[in-house]
């Protein structure tokens, strides 16, 4: 068996002067940890336009009466359903389903109260070219929950029909609230030379 002792690997690369720090390309922007009592949604606001892409890493459980359920994704406070569209492919351990969610941006899955205690769903949202005012906005999501005999793994894509730069992102369970210990982290991803 190959055993690897861990050594910290510096990312500094070619430094031009003592004290210089290579900031890297993936920058943490904000974090939300849901406390006692839960909360209905998580919103990242005042998102700077200085990155090229955004990523949200969500570890979540809802108060909905299900094992697995979706999360809605909305931008800049736009709650107009017809501005959104999403598609999914979803596997539940025995079958595969796919379909559209017209007039909605729904991505899957986080756990609900019917999942085993301490089981949380995980989702990674990528929003590319979020500040580009020449493009509608596309999201790509990998997510799922395994419940040891239940659960689903999903790939979804979403469209926001707007060329506005994204300055805020709101996440909410499709039903219920986010439960305590839900954790959402927003990251900015820079392009070369930025």
């Amino acid at each position, binding site marked *: 068996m190959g055993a690897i002792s861990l050594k910290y690997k510096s990312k500094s690369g070619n430094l031009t002067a003592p004290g210089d720090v290579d900031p890297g390309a993936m920058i943490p922007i904000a974090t939300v940890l849901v406390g006692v009592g839960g909360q209905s949604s998580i919103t990242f606001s005042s998102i700077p336009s200085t990155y090229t892409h955004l990523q949200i890493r969500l570890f979540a459980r809802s108060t909905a009466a299900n094992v697995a359920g979706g999360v809605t994704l909305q931008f800049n406070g736009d709650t107009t359903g017809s501005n959104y569209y999403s598609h999914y492919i979803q596997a539940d351990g025995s079958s595969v389903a796919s379909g559209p969610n017209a007039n909605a941006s729904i991505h899957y899955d986080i756990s609900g109260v019917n999942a*085993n205690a301490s089981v949380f769903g*995980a989702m990674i949202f990528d929003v590319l070219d979020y500040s580009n005012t020449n493009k509608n906005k596309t999201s790509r999501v990998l997510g799922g929950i395994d419940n040891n005999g239940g659960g689903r793994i999903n790939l979804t894509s979403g469209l926001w029909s707007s060329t506005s730069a994204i300055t805020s992102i709101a996440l909410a369970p499709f039903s219920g609230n986010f439960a305590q210990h839900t954790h959402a982290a927003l990251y900015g991803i820079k392009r070369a030379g930025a």
Partner: protein
Amino acid sequence: MPLPSTMTPIATATLTSSASTVAFTSIPSTYTDLMLVLTGKYTGVDDSSPALRFNGDSSSNYSTTYLNGSAGSATSARESNGNTIYVGSMSGDQSTSIAHILNYSNATTYKTVLSRGGHTTYRVRAYVGVWRATPQTITRIDVYGNGVYNFDVGTTLTLYGIKAA
């Protein structure tokens, strides 16, 4: 002053001899998520997935659900009460798998793993798995091949830490 970056490479293993397993030990608890990138192949042709075990726990505390695309069809299956979590995909040709372990250092919840992987000859897969041991920080990850063939020379595994704001 630039914000501190994340996605820090913690350790890389590039195999100079074939190995049935690779272990990452003494993983620091200072990150939020871990990401494991695995590129390589087995020493023989066998269409199966690498698997992870945490903190040396070999009990039946793992389960995995996956989506599979191959040979013109999409299928799904699940393993419950297993002793590893399956991630990605590998065979005797070059393949790539990426596994995300979110909130690995919290001692409150079970650990959920998302992964994707594929190899050109056979298939593409997406997985979700859960480790249901008493909630604890992950300090060790053992990466297993398929039990028939080893990870081949040149297979590379890199563990990254991702730290939230």
